[in-house]
């Protein structure tokens, strides 16, 4: 008898669990951003009874992606996984592994209008004919940070940051002359000074709409304007006006400790700057070369999006679709934007944040959005889509270090980045043909 009761209890629990569909969401957000992921999932879970989203932290972006790949190969993938921008092309090419978001939404008969998303963010994760493959989540863009106190000390107007690159370099020299160790540094040489630089000047980074139109794309960023830009930075490194601080975001301490007066970093790093800068700092648009036609165009995004794995059950997909709709609401997006510094992914969320008067106190965040919305994106500025993107960025980082160390000239260095990068693009093409 006892056994029967036990069996029935187990069955009841099983039925209870069946009534509520649980899906896992693997992500790479840490610290406060990780808490916000949990908050948003909690809000979704509390908003209805049928579905439960369980956020699981899986380590760094590459750890998370590898965990997803391993889980897929073992037949146990999560429903949702957060993948960084360099993994986008790999995910898109893995047609057997993913379920495109536009398909997910239409299959579940969701009221879903893709035009609510900010164009430059939407385009980054869509096919060239506009079908959205993954859900934008944490998007950022590159901006310039500058030390207002240092500007004052050097006799410069802290409310007038330099607008063009020639002005920028002059200001950098003045900052150094005023007693700073150097004038400026930059993070993410590939993302900021090559990819965003190209988009901002409406120059092609690669052929075939920066890779959106096909795998047979070629890198073409070794143009005279980019060569001139890198030559300028290289020349200033010789006099110590530019200081190299390392790859990725490793140059941050040079700026936050007040050793250089200007810096380039993601708007996603705004919170970190606020926490670490013991001086008054400002955020400004990326500078541009005014003799380039069409500049400034618009900057492009970085960050990560949410991908849906293939082979899940109908209720699970319904849960994911409901969740995606939930996180696209203006209130949720505005909360995410204000708490993390990442950009709101919809126009409505931007308007809402604005109407709340948030940007009056935090003008820096609006600079980033305006820069992204500056003009309607062109084929050169809707984003970058390359296979083996990580390897390409690595080649760029390595070669830039060789340029700075004087092992190769600027022109030869950029040619080498393009040549080696194209080799790895061909490898990717060969694999997916």
């Amino acid at each position, binding site marked *: 008898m006892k056994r029967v009761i036990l069996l029935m209890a187990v069955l009841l629990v099983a039925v209870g669990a069946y009534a509520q569909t649980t899906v896992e969401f693997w992500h790479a957000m840490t610290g406060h951003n990780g808490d916000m992921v949990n908050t948003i999932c909690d809000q979704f879970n509390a908003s209805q009874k049928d579905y439960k989203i369980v956020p699981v932290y899986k380590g760094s972006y590459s750890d998370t992606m590898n965990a997803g*790949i391993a889980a897929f*190969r073992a037949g146990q993938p999560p429903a949702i996984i957060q993948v960084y921008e360099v993994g986008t092309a*790999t995910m898109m090419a*893995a047609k057997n592994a993913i379920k495109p978001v536009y398909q997910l939404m239409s299959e579940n008969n969701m009221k879903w209008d893709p035009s609510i998303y900010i164009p430059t963010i939407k385009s980054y994760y869509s096919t060239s004919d506009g079908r959205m493959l993954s859900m934008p989540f944490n998007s950022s863009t590159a901006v310039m940070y500058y030390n207002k106190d240092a500007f004052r000390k050097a006799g410069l107007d802290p409310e007038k940051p330099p607008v063009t690159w020639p002005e920028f370099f002059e200001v950098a020299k003045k900052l150094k002359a005023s007693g700073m160790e150097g004038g400026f540094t930059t993070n993410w040489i590939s993302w900021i000074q090559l990819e965003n630089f190209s988009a901002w000047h409406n120059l092609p980074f690669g052929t075939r709409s920066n890779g959106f139109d096909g795998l047979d794309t070629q890198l073409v960023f070794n143009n005279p304007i980019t060569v001139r830009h890198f030559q300028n930075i290289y020349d200033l490194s010789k006099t110590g006006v530019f200081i190299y601080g390392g790859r990725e975001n490793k140059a941050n301490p040079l700026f936050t400790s007040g050793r250089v007066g200007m810096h380039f970093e993601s708007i996603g790093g705004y919170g970190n700057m606020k926490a670490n800068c013991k001086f008054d700092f400002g955020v400004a648009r990326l500078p541009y070369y005014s003799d380039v036609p069409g500049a400034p165009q618009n900057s492009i995004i970085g960050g990560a999006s949410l991908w849906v794995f293939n082979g899940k059950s109908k209720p699970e997909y319904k849960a994911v679709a409901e969740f995606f709709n939930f996180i696209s609401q203006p209130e949720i997006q505005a909360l995410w934007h204000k708490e993390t510094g990442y950009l709101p992914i919809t126009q409505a969320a931007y308007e809402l944040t604005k109407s709340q008067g948030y940007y009056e106190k935090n003008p820096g965040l609006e600079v980033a959005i305006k820069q992204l919305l500056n003009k309607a994106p062109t084929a050169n500025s809707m984003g970058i889509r390359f296979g083996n993107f990580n390897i390409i960025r690595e080649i760029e980082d*390595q070669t830039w*270090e060789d340029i700075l160390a004087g092992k190769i000239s600027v022109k030869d260095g950029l040619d080498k980045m393009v040549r080696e990068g194209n080799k790895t693009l061909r490898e990717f093409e060969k694999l*997916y043909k």
Partner: protein
Amino acid sequence: MSKQYEFKAPVLPYLLVLPQMAIVFVFFFWPAAQAVLQSFYLQDPFGGRMIFVGFQNYSKLLVDPDYWQSFTVSTVFALCITISAMAISLFLAIQANKKIRFSAFYKTMLVWPYAVSTLVAGVIWLFMFNPNVGVIAYVLKHTFHVNWQYLLNFNQAFLLLTMAASWKQLAYNFVFFLAGLQSVPATLIEAAEIDGAGAGTRFWKIIFPMLSPTTFYLLVMNLVYGFFETFPIVHAITQGAPGKSTGILVYKVWRDGVINLDLGSSAAQSVILMLMVILLTVFQFRFIERRVTY
């Protein structure tokens, strides 16, 4: 050979070694076989496409100057670590083995770094020497006016990695050398002293030869450490920079496989590393067992 004991029971011994064999099979042989298999394919990370390419992953590596550069750096790196870590720890062991005050204290302190994990060792050295945040880097730049920028200077980067990796290995070597020194019979040394041998002669003619089994064992262990276990140090301090000049073989395997998702090439590289470990092991057994004994 004659000392071997033969079990009479037909089943029990096999049952007893079975758990161990199962572990070895699941965690070593099976993944190793997988690596060999994958090294013959070009594949997308999700396993959707597998294109058989034969030895192409290997041949590409062998004609790649970057791979040979990585090989050279790894070899020089392992040799530098081995020489410096062994020489310094032998010197320290000799000093600690003397009859001095607080020798137990010194010995304890010298063994301590062994408790530090390799990654943490790397991070400690990073915090001291990073040009952006390092304390010693600051002193080097502002007090001694050294142009300290290992992010762009290969020699500085290599020196820093060698120091960090050798420091981590000192404690291990120290323990073995100290034990080795303590097992050199005091009577031999006394006899030599009576015969009029000076300190130098005593060391080179008696102590050093008597230590040779220990030295040889440590030589192999240090080479293995320098080649294969220094990954966390490179990962923490340089990540292969400047350029790709400090990208040692183990770092490259990880980078190409885990970050860049080039599984075929990464598998081929790990098979090559596996062959190197096998060679080193065979070498160690052959020589330790046969040559360096008394």
